[in-house]
């Protein structure tokens, strides 16, 4: 810190509003997400869980975005790849594992939904579903509620670039634009929608769509942690200042197949995938921290051990945890339908 000339690049995190501690926490969270994801892929291959939809390659943007938000006030509507985001806003690996194993204790859905279908009232994460993009109008509705109640909060919603072609994107964005609502729409443009490459999804740019809704749209390098943090921080500020919505198109690459049921090499080349591994934002941000003197290989090693242990415990716990009871299938169709039937509502 005494070499003023070189201090600037190494203190970029402070410039964008992250203190040293948070800058490191942010990295740890990305790494945890990566390791969690890899564990799930392993568990699926081992036949311990049925299915996994990976977020590998998208953790940088997800976690950076979450760090720019207020977990006490904002509303979150992440999509199915947002494991990094969920960890950043406070869901534990044990809880996520319970969901992967579809166990009763899963806080997202009590083991009812596929993994990746997040929800937690406690964490302000609105329950999500599989039909893509339905969450965009929900985010707008939550933002409308914030505005009506004069809360200093934004709604943050994510979706893929394929999903940005659904009518609900258009209708939700337009509604938010007209009402100038505090909502951040973050498109995680990973360049594929299952097998369909971006060129067959849209001929324009997702970020350009904001123009037609009367609010700013920007493209950000989703592998650049600090740039993502800055973009979302600014969007949040716009939101809580009454300046309305922001659309952020975070550019990234889906490094894994679409899901564990997908063979991606049927529609893209290994070279293409490998080339994108080189742009991976997680090592890139690590490099930044190391250069800034905030992180070291020793710390990395120690942390990875910690993570491995945590994941082991989470997996064991989830594996042993009980399934929901068969007859509870009938509960929670309507309020109070569990009363007197042994339900827990």
């Amino acid at each position, binding site marked *: 810190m005494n070499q003023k000339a070189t201090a600037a690049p190494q203190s970029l995190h402070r410039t964008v509003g992250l203190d040293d501690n948070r800058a490191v926490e942010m990295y740890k969270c990305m790494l945890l997400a990566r390791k969690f994801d890899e564990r799930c892929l392993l568990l699926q291959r081992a036949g311990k869980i049925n299915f996994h939809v990976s977020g590998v390659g998208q953790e940088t943007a997800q976690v950076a975005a979450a760090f720019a938000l207020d977990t006490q006030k904002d509303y979150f509507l992440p999509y199915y790849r947002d494991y990094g985001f969920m960890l950043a806003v406070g869901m534990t690996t044990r809880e996520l594992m319970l969901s992967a194993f579809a166990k009763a204790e899963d806080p997202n859905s009590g083991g009812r939904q596929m993994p990746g279908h997040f*929800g937690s009232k406690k964490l302000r994460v609105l*329950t999500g*579903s599989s039909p893509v993009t339905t969450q965009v109008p929900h985010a707008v509705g939550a933002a409308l509620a914030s505005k009506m109640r004069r809360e200093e909060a934004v709604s943050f919603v994510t979706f893929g670039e394929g999903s940005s072609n659904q009518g609900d994107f258009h209708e939700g964005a337009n509604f938010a634009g007209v009402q100038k609502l505090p909502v951040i729409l973050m498109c995680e443009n990973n360049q594929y929608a299952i097998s369909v490459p971006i060129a067959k999804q849209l001929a324009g740019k997702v970020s350009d769509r904001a123009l037609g809704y009367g609010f700013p749209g920007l493209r950000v390098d989703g592998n650049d942690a600090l740039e993502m943090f800055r973009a979302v921080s600014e969007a949040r500020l716009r939101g809580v200042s009454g300046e309305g919505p922001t659309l952020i198109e975070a550019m990234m690459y889906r490094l894994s197949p679409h899901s564990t049921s997908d063979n991606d090499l049927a529609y893209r080349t290994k070279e293409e995938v490998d080339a994108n591994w080189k742009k991976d934002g997680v090592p890139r941000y690590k490099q930044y921290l190391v250069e800034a003197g905030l992180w070291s290989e020793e710390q990395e090693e120690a942390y990875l051990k910690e993570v491995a242990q945590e994941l082991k415990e989470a997996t064991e716990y989830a594996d042993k945890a009980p399934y929901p009871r068969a007859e509870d299938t009938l509960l929670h169709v309507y309020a109070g339908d569990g009363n007197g039937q042994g339900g827990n509502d």
Partner: protein
Amino acid sequence: MPMMEYIDAIRLAMKEEMEQDSSVFVLGEDVGVKGGVFTTTKGLQDQFGEDRVIDTPLAESAIAGVAIGAAMVGMKPIAEMQYSDFMLPATNQIISEAAKIRYRSNNDWDCPIVVRAPIGGGIFGGLYHSQCPESIFFGTPGLKIVAPYSAYDAKGLLKAAIRDPDPVLFFENKKCYKLIKEDVPEDDYVVPIGKANLLREGDDITVISYSLPLHFAMQAAEELDKEGITSHILDLRTIQPLDREAIVEAVRRTGKVLIVHEDNKTGGVGAEVAAIIAEECLYELDAPIRRLCGPDAPAMPINPPQEKFFMLSKDKLLDAMRELALY
């Protein structure tokens, strides 16, 4: 107790609930300055401001979806669909989202929205301003559906719907808006969701219906009285969940049942009512279960002869009821 139109009763319900609960708000197309294309929300924006009576862009999936999002975080939105014909763009939000929010979150989240939509024909509205879309949404677990026939019920059921912790589709009949005028209490009552209502007692035939056609049934019943045929008439009031006990009890009373609705026959609510009866009290029937419904044509034409052909009427009810009585 003031006389008021069915449409006034709906407006009053919203007004009372909005006065009493600041989380209640209305959103939809033209609901603001114009007060809705039928005047259902007239005056509400004046009283509650633009924030609580929101003219939305012309986009029903957003109207429903935004309402759902607001409801999840604690508001009580009343989403107006200008015509029920135009709620189909919102089907995915209603069936995939609203209906499943409690269930999929294992009771962590809920979705207390009301979707109001005018149903029914006989107003020279043609194919797309006359439909009864009940059967599309009916049978979707997680949704409640009500369809009042009277001004009293309209007020009481709408208040119950607004307070209900689950999503409720409120199908108001546009032909009833101005046709039905009656005493409606100005105090705070609700008509409970899930309970059918016996409109009339009789011993010869049972008529089970909801919404507008009940008026035709009541008129026909009066005439049949003079012929010595007495009719037992049950208003389902709530079409989901159905009041099975009330249905079975009403059928038992006469052993002959006519189910009536304006929605087309195949796959309508009446099919389920018939199936419940066939399941629960088959042996108490003295005649096959009859249904008198809209024809299985896509929707009601606008020209008068075909509109008349399509619509139910007192005369059609009279014939069907008499025929059943004489069976």
